[in-house]
């Protein structure tokens, strides 16, 4: 960290805010039940609230890297420092499933059942990817083992920057019933029936940790969804990753949290466009992630996907949720994904609403600390 600069005298813009937080925040403890340290009262022009709506005149209180409270007429604690910010303060985006930092090979081929793997063991915290995430406004990413096994192991929630990178060491047990990925004519199952038999024998519900943390199931048709439900049981909290033609089985997932790859970049089909619309209409709680088997998506595509969803569905709130709160619920974390009391202060100050593609990032705070700032202010 560069040495602390002198405290700003006129706290009127984001750059100054960022500089001062940079100077003072490293002293804050990382994970304390009772937050300590100075209280920051951030007063941006607009705040994006947990329901996705945009509100004016809000104050966001931050202490010890956590959000102390959000509201229009909050009583400021004594000693709180007020910062008037020009822009829209949004929660940092959450990449619902990615493979950042896990260098190839990330697929464990030695067995078809590898429930014991932990993606966090493979994360290279020094990789070049993380800086790009921050620049795209993504403050945390759900890193998964490649779903090439029927049980692939544990995902991890990793912060894009900051001192405390590992937010959740084991998020969900990853299952896969996408036969094109787990099928293996030589050794493994060669059919969905074989994969289902294997999954049933694996007794996922009794894998230690699954009862508390739940599973994340990769599926590409309704037979796979039924097989997962039957094999895992209703008690286990299940999230879904939709591959293939999601419209053909999306009706099974009404009211569920489900992840989608970034919708076809530059390769739309009329059905593809309609699918997102219908999933939204059916009440599937969609979220996006940048992992794909061919690695085509980039960090910036997450925001593009949300803009696309907003245009297709006419529901900007749902589009915001798809890259923030829905993604957090998909992962199973109540730490990230919303500007809400008790969550981490992973905040991004935009020059306009983040779904406006002409909006620029003015500052990124991760765990209350400046991770990125734009220095050329007008």
């Amino acid at each position, binding site marked *: 960290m560069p*040495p602390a600069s002198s405290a700003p005298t006129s706290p009127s813009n984001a750059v100054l805010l960022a500089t001062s937080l940079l100077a003072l925040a490293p002293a804050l403890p990382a994970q304390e039940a009772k937050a300590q340290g100075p209280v920051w009262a951030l007063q941006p022009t607009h705040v994006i609230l947990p329901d996705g709506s945009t509100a004016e005149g809000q104050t966001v209180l931050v202490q010890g890297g956590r959000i102390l409270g959000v509201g229009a007429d909050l009583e400021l604690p004594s000693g709180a420092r007020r910062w008037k910010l020009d822009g829209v303060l949004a929660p940092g985006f959450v990449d619902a499933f990615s493979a950042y930092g896990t260098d190839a090979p990330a*697929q464990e*081929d030695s067995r078809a059942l590898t429930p014991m793997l932990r993606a966090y063991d493979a994360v290279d915290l*020094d990789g070049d990817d993380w800086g790009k995430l921050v620049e795209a406004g993504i403050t945390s990413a759900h890193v998964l083992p490649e779903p090439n096994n029927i049980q692939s192991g544990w995902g991890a929630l990793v912060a894009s920057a900051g001192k405390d990178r590992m937010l959740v*060491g084991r998020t969900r047990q990853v299952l896969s019933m996408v036969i094109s990925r787990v099928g*293996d004519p030589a050794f493994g199952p060669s059919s969905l029936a074989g994969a289902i*038999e294997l999954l049933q024998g694996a007794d996922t519900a009794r894998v230690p940790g699954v009862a508390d943390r739940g599973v994340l199931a990769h599926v590409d048709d309704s037979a796979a969804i039924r097989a997962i439900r039957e094999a895992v049981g209703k008690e286990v909290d299940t999230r879904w990753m939709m591959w293939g033609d999601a419209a053909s089985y999306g009706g099974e997932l009404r009211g569920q949290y489900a992840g989608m790859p970034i919708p076809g970049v530059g390769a739309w089909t009329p059905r593809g466009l309609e699918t997102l619309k219908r999933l939204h209409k059916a009440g599937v709680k969609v979220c996006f992630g940048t992992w794909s088997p061919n690695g085509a998506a980039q960090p910036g595509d997450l925001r593009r996907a949300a803009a696309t969803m907003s245009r297709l569905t006419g529901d900007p709130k749902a589009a915001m949720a798809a890259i923030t709160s829905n993604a957090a619920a998909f992962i199973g974390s109540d730490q990230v994904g919303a500007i809400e009391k008790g969550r981490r202060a992973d905040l991004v100050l935009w020059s306009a609403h983040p779904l406006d593609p002409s909006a620029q990032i003015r500052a990124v705070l991760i765990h209350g600390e400046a991770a990125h700032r734009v220095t050329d202010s007008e």
Partner: protein
Amino acid sequence: MLLTPLLASLLSFAPADTPDEPQPASVSSYVVDVLHVGDGQVLKNVVVTVTDGKVSAVIPGGDAPDGATRLEGVHMTPGLVDAFSYMAVDGDTVEQSRETTASLKLSTTIDLDSPSFARAASEGVTTAFLTPDSLNAFGGLAAIVKTAGGQPADLFADEGASAKLVHDAAALKISLGNDVAMGNRTPGRVPNSFFIRRPTTRMGTVWAIRSTFYNAMRYAEAREAGEADYHADYEAVLAAMRGEIPIRVHARRNNDVQTALRLAAEFQWPGFVIEEGTEAHRASQLLAAAGVPVVAGPGYDNRQRAIAQGPTLEQLRFLAAPPQICCEHLHEDAFVVELGAFPVFPHHHECDVDGSAQHYEEIPRNEWGIPIDPHDPLHHEHEEHSEVDPMLPENELVRDVVLSIGGERLASGLNRGRFTEGDQATPALPALLHQAGVPMAIGGAEAHDAAATEASLIHQARRAVAYGLPRDQAIASITSRAAALCGLGDRVGSVAVGMDADLVLWSGDPLEHSSRPLLVVVDGEVVVDNR
């Protein structure tokens, strides 16, 4: 010349000649201009006396006794200690047909007559910590040798030209990172060689380590109850957990270093040493907080595929201010897992002693977890050979493949991960570790297996000095601290009374490129004379 208090204490322990010694003691003396004691001290005009292979007196400003070896302008250091070396092993240094070969001793495979030892000795290295290669999760037990002074098996060789074994269980080697996972890659998705036992990812490597610890703990319980046969690998692991054998973890990347710290917390290791640690400076605060030492390797940079040449601007910034990495990971609940609360590998019979993984046994499965036909003849064969590690597929064809191609495959796989790990490699690694307060030694890796002296241990210390390591620290990191990290701090690595008389007389300051060893003494005997 003023005597330092330490020196005074050394002198007070100077032993008198013991009268009941049956044979006359062999005594020799060296008069040197400068003595690098090894712990950072530098003394001038010193008389070092050696009696029966041990240092018996270190007297600054003392009178030279008759017959003393006197060389003008020489510097003396203790014999250098290479705390991380791969040299002089017959064939591959790990047995790859099992993932866990914790009980295999590297000492059994060392070629004590290897010319590598002679090269090492001529470069001033008198003690070498030989470590198994990083291709197994548990590579086996490391060995410590003295590079000269042994009885050569080769009848044409000079007396004392062979190395001699000092310790055959110097540490249990555990490897993290890509190396372990690399042996199993095949063009298709399916691993189809005998390497099939191997993990193919970092995650799998970590699991292979975890499962071995869990299995060893279960084995211990079963053994106590009289329900398990003796298992050498688990015994070695348990000895390491009890602190009887030190633990060495080979890790290059920052995240592998952090993984080692998590494993240490999870299994309550009594302590361990990081080996090679190419990017350990990125986790230096964590290491310092945990008090975990590092034996720094030569620092290969995967982008240049050569020894990293000079720091980048970013690295220089780290020199100014080490990166901040928090220590909370060590205490995170998510990583403290209770014994028995974990799934074992399907089909790993021998460790299901407490029945906690019984649900996996309801359906018999093969290595890939696939239910198998109980009438399958292969399956029966498997059960009959239950003492064989079930992780190895019991297939005759596979066995043949092992025998026919094993050697070449393994040789080509040696340390390949070095070239894929180490984006952050910097020659300033020793300086950065020192600055962060991490106990640190410098290791030579393959330094003396090749004839190139540019890679020798003293050269690496010189390079560390060029990139910011204080000179006294550079000497300590190849002598006293290196010895301490090998567990031999009470015998080698410093020139003090009672220590082994392993001495190197240099033509000048050893940290200058213009200096070379003139005399190398091991256990009091001159083994290299380049005067």
